């Protein structure tokens, strides 16, 4: 299935671009996706924390990713 990945802050540098279109096995969970991503971009392992948002909401590890989801990498936030 096709998904869109957006990377903000330091993760944009770690994965190489702001926006990527990815092909994932159907049934991939957020946790599974993070494993795939960290093996492809080991720099991500250096982060203090890394959360995933799916369609503008934070998603738990067992959340199942669906076709055409917008997945966002959320490294440690620092607003304010």
């Amino acid at each position, binding site marked *: 299935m096709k998904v869109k990945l*957006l990377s*903000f*802050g*330091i993760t944009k540098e770690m994965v190489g671009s702001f926006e990527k279109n990815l092909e994932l096995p159907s049934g991939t969970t957020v946790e599974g996706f993070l494993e795939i991503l960290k093996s492809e971009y080991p720099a991500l392992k*250096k*982060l*203090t924390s890394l959360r995933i*948002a799916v369609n*503008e*909401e*934070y998603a738990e590890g067992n959340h199942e990713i669906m076709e055409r989801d917008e997945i*966002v990498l*959320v*490294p*440690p*936030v*620092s*607003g*304010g």
Partner: protein
Amino acid sequence: MEQHINIKLTQTVLSLEACSAFVSADNVGGIVNFVGTVRNQTKGKKVLKLDFEAYEPMAVSEMAKIAQQAIEKYEVHKMAIHHRIGMLEVGEIPVIIAASSAHRKAAFEACQYAIDTLKETVPIWKREVFEDGEVWVSATP
């Protein structure tokens, strides 16, 4: 229906008067405003600028959640949360939070809750620009 929350994410200068006026009402006795400002140093190192970026739609919805939660958690009448993005100079204002309540304690608590939570959950990131380079704040240990 009267709006009790006011959320703004913008590239332009924030207005303290606008935030404070939004939360003002005849049935409130106190307003507490928190104004974040860009400091000239961090851990003893001179900061030139801060560059803020946001995942905009989610940043707005997370700020709205915080304002709504603060109203439910404390006896607060209205909340405004305004955040600026882009490149900010020392002394400029990245964030303003305003809370109003009948009795002042609730407004102090709600305002503190909102800025503490914003710094934990709202997808906004800042880069500190030093004389000798740039760093994404808190990204790595």
